[in-house]
């Protein structure tokens, strides 16, 4: 994308004048960050707003997932391998960062394969990988389990916490709590599942959608298109990330994901249980299921008093409306998940936007 085309697009976005307020939800946490980081959000004209959706897998991970992981870490003492994103997330009573400071063996990995190689190179130590992420990450985690079974690496296990995004958007729309005029859909989730699973938004809920990439031009293109679709009342689903996203997605990846995982009802932090929106391990791979391998009863989950992350993840409020935001809840001492993950709405808001 040439830089003068970039500048033309920026001028176009800045020059839009919607007559009424148009509220676009971006489902994906990486979009939340990139809208700020590229400066595109700073170009928004009046009457155009972006609402953060439940799109940060770290934010929506329920307390009992981390409570269980920490309880396993204390009682069965495996090496806990995790993406960097999970380290600071507060669980009901602690966090992996605090447990690590107390001596628990927590290691950050860039890829689930790194966790598998860790297990292969230390046969005496159990390695438990915290499997979080949406449809973009779940196939990679499934493929890792398949490889573990093939190579008979017995000291490797997975704590399944993956989530599926279309059911969450469906739940948000069904709840009709928040006024949303259109959606920026997650580019890399769609690279895996394709465009079809998103068509229900335009067809049943009459809202236009754009599958979008993550560079500045992608974000500007997506917003300019959505404002056009909303003002002209055209409820279409457009794939503007066609350089990566095929209509049918990556069939092989979905097949691998479904070979290891099956859908289940899942608890979303702050939102509640959403039917068929989670993934749990199938019986064929029970040997690698950390829930079965390390039986524990985690302490009862509890949420920090006053924490309104739930309403935030449902797009009902924006960060400054939460009483804890910037006071009791800061990046140094996060109370709720939305402030912890770099992609959480509060963290992004606090970092990039606090003027």
């Amino acid at each position: 994308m040439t830089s003068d085309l970039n500048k033309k697009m920026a001028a176009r976005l800045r020059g839009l004048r919607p007559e009424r307020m148009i509220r676009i939800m971006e489902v994906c946490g990486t979009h939340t960050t990139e809208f700020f980081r590229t400066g595109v959000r700073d170009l928004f004209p009046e009457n155009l707003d972006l609402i953060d959706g439940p799109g940060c897998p770290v934010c929506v991970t329920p307390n009992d997932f981390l409570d269980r992981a920490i309880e396993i870490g204390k009682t069965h003492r495996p090496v806990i391998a995790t993406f960097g994103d999970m380290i600071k997330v507060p669980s009901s009573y602690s966090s992996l960062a605090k447990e690590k400071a107390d001596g628990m063996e927590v290691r950050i990995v860039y890829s689930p394969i790194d966790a598998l190689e860790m297990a292969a190179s230390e046969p005496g130590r159990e390695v438990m990988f915290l499997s979080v992420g949406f449809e973009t990450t779940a196939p990679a985690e499934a493929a890792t389990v398949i490889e573990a079974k093939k190579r008979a690496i017995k000291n490797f296990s997975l704590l399944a916490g993956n989530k599926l995004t279309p059911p969450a958007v469906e739940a948000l729309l069904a709840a009709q709590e928040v006024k949303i005029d259109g959606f920026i859909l997650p580019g890399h989730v769609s690279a895996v599942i394709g465009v079809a699973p998103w068509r229900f938004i335009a067809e049943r809920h009459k809202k236009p959608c754009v599958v979008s990439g993550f560079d500045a031009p992608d974000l500007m293109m997506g917003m300019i298109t959505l404002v056009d679709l909303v003002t002209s009342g055209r409820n279409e689903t457009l794939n503007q990330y066609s350089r990566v996203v095929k209509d049918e997605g990556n069939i092989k990846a979905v097949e691998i994901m479904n070979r290891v995982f099956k859908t289940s009802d899942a608890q979303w932090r702050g939102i509640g249980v959403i039917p068929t929106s989670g993934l749990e391990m199938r019986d064929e791979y029970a040997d690698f299921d950390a829930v079965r391998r390390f039986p524990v009863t985690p302490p009862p989950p509890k949420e920090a008093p006053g924490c309104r992350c739930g309403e935030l993840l449902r797009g009902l409020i924006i960060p400054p409306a939460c009483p804890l935001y910037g006071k009791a809840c800061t990046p140094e001492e996060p109370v709720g998940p939305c402030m912890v993950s770099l992609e959480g709405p509060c963290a992004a808001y606090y970092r990039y936007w606090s003027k």
Partner: protein
Amino acid sequence: MAKKILPGHGSGGRLMNEMIDTVIRKRFGGGSVQLDDSAILDVGGASIAFTTDTFTITPLFFPGGDIGTLAVNGTVNDLAVMGATPRWISCALVLEEGLEFEVLERVLDSMKSEADRAGVTIVTGDTKVVPSGKADRMFINTSGIGVIEKQAARREIAPGDRIVISGTIGDHGMAVMALRNNLSFSKGLQSDCAHLNHMIRAAIDAFPHSVKFMRDPTRGGVASVLNEIVNGKALSARLDEESLPVRDEVKGVCGILGIDALYAANEGKVVMIVKADDAEGVVSILRKTPEGKNAAIIGEIDTEFPGKAYLETAIGGRRILPLLTEEQLPRIC
């Protein structure tokens, strides 16, 4: 305040600064502890710069340097950015029982050769051995003294002053992070570890009154240094994304691991705040030296967001560059 020390308390971000104020300076006396790269002291009419630093990097050896070159150069640079001429440094070793002598000798050799080239002498030191497991093979603490001939390079900063960086951003931090995440390099990315005292001397001799402030952006990177410069003032620091010198490989590693190069450590760079009309002159002096060949003007001091640093992005939008609480971790989302 957290009840226990967390990694963030050592990362050059907000957590560390808060600890320094509320735990350390409160006890040692806010007035006596000088919060700068070096303390400026008067000794019988002469003025000296005095600094100390500790090096705990793992791995000990990395492309472009090792814990020894880091220790010497880091100390020399902390003196040089005050406008002092570095003269003497100390070397206190904390060695883990079982460390191979061959490793120690290799580190000390590189310290000696770096000190000679920087023109400083290692005049004192100490050695302690800790039981195996109590240290990560080896730590080095240094302190350094430099002589200030004229006046410390610290003058009042004003709107319109230019922000200059002496070279590419994020090389050291991303080279080490790539090593730790087993990313390798076809064209090679290495730490920029280097002593800058000769380069800085050339710049301030040519423009003694225009270089108002200097700091080496180590932990916390360029963004953290700019926050420190404007913190509590009615000034803001604007960076222009299009003028930032960042190596392609550094952009590559940042993309893969989800890290912002403006927060990655630099071990051979200096951020300078320079009077507007002499900024070009300073940059051309820097570019004549090997360490400063990629020097550039990357932004300006203004009053748009008082007390904050911010970025004018490539497409003309703006975003705040906050002081991070702690070091960034590789992430997937």
